[in-house]
């Protein structure tokens, strides 16, 4: 496959010295992709698209932002009021963060449904979890920058999580703050890191893609590609499909930007930070709510923190917790139900995370938390042993030809 010959002389000249165009040809044009990918496979490239938007808007916003406790809030308002199209850049960035998580969460749940984490794609899955963790850190620090009430108290609460670590916890928190409370040094370093981490993200995304192009894309049937008849070149088939997805996504995204820009936000963040008054209801941004619910489900400080981080770290072990030989939930009748149960559980956790920790909310939160872990630690291993999967088609091309597998094909629509 190496040594593609290009017509254009300039391109050939460069490619002979550094095969960048050959690499692009292989990975974005010729890349043999299973021909049966459904629209759930759009969300990977969509996530990359959002990342680019976030980088662009972020860099231009940084040109007008001042990371200082006395100026941060007013500099953001100056962006909103005086900088040309500043309001647009800021609303794009603000809502873009929510969109990023929507897209990535759908991408993750697609992976869960179709068993994308299974061999040989474990490393690809791991890199995805690293991306999620870096995204979370970036989003959290970004939320601090406008220096409103939620920024300040969010920063205080989240950094205080580390004080739960035995012996060195307090020292770590002081170190994170650069002082004895969330203050100017904290804001300054959060800005530095918020600017840095997206580039780390780009690097990990690159590794994620590298791993993807090594093991190649999975597909809704969860079976391996048997030969060229099962694949089509990425371009033009998936480039155009992805572009259509981008169009639909932009309609959804920009609707919020133009017509409900503060839908995902909290009104309290339009009140400047006040270190002496905590708002009555402090909640994290919606994308952290399920984890926040897990944190609060445990009446012990250290226990809550461990469980919260554990809820993400457990994903690393998933390829070994799920022992089923079949990848796609399409051929796993019980897992298919369990998957939806797990999704509902996560939504319940998100709902509980937004509610005050009192009464029935506590009980529901605890049950949902217990189920979250039971899903990974009990249900998945058991299903691997007990579940009897339905017969899997011979090849990707086969179900189209054989009438017996027509039901599987129906489902795709």
């Amino acid at each position: 496959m190496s040594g593609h010959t290009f017509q254009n002389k300039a391109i050939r000249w460069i490619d002979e010295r550094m095969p960048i165009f050959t690499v692009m040809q292989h990975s974005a044009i010729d890349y043999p992709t299973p021909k049966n990918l459904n629209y759930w496979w759009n969300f990977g490239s969509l996530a990359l698209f959002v990342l680019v938007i976030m980088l662009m808007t972020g860099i231009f916003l940084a040109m007008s932002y001042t990371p200082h406790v006395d100026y941060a809030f007013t500099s953001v308002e100056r962006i909103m009021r005086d900088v040309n199209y500043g309001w647009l850049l800021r609303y794009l960035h603000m809502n873009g963060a929510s969109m990023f998580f929507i897209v990535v969460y759908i991408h993750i749940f697609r992976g869960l449904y179709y068993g994308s984490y299974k061999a040989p794609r474990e490393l690809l899955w791991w890199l995805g979890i690293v991306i999620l963790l870096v995204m979370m850190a970036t989003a959290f620090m970004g939320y601090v920058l406008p220096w409103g009430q939620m920024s300040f108290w969010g920063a205080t609460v989240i950094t205080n999580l580390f004080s739960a670590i035995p012996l060195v916890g307090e020292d770590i928190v002081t170190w994170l703050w650069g002082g004895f409370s969330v203050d100017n040094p904290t804001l300054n370093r959060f800005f530095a890191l918020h600017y840095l981490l997206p580039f780390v993200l780009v690097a990990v995304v690159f590794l994620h893609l590298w791993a993807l192009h090594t093991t190649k894309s999975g597909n809704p049937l969860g079976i391996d590609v048997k030969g060229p008849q099962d694949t089509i070149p990425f371009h033009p088939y998936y480039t155009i499909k992805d572009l259509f997805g981008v169009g639909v996504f932009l309609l959804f995204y920009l609707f919020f930007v133009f017509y409900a820009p503060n839908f995902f936000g909290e009104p309290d963040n339009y009140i400047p930070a006040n270190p002496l008054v905590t708002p009555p209801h402090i909640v994290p941004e919606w994308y952290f709510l399920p984890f926040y619910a897990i944190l609060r489900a445990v009446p012990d400080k250290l226990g809550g923190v461990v469980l919260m981080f554990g809820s993400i770290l457990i994903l690393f072990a998933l390829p070994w917790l799920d022992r089923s030989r079949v990848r796609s939930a399409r051929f796993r009748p019980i897992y298919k139900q369990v998957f939806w149960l797990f999704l509902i559980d996560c939504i319940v956790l998100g709902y509980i995370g937004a509610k005050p920790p009192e009464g029935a909310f506590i009980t529901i939160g605890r049950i949902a938390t217990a189920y979250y872990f039971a899903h990974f630690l009990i249900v998945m291993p058991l299903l691997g042993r007990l579940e009897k999967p339905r017969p899997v088609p011979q090849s990707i091309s086969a179900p189209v030809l054989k009438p017996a597998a027509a039901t599987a094909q129906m489902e795709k629509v």
Partner: protein
Amino acid sequence: MADTASHAHGAPGQGETRRDFLLYATTAVGAVGTAIALWPFIHSMNPAADVLALSSTEVDLSPIAEGQSITVTWRGKPVFIRHRTAREIEEARAADASGLPDPQKDEDRVQKAEWLVLVGVCTHLGCIPLGQKTSEPKGDYNGWFCPCHGSHYDTSGRIRKGPAPANLVVPEYTFLDDNRVRIG
């Protein structure tokens, strides 16, 4: 790759041209949209509304004696205001304007002969020329001298010698009364 390539082309003939047209049209619309979407990013780097709102400065001229200069700030740049002596005015007007690197008559550069108002930024590469204080070199033409690359300006702020391509810029200004001037 050969068998998959046959998929790519589908039915030849009319379908092909229709797809081509659709492809070109979509590419064109997409490209236009992308180009328009870039404008807010670029425009966000232009001066913001609060910067534009601060673009005039008022100066009281009464404390400036003949032969003295002051420097004020306007839009973050130094503006030289010189109360010229009769000799300086004479020197400036005696020069043959048409023979200068950037031909301009002194009369066209001042509103009142004794008051010379200039943006104090060398037109070569943006240094601040010397000559405001009596102790500083004024160059070969008794005006200003830019130490960075050796441009000499005369008593009208015109370039006479050195690499600078143009005369020192005269900002927009208006006399509010005999002793007050508004720059910008």
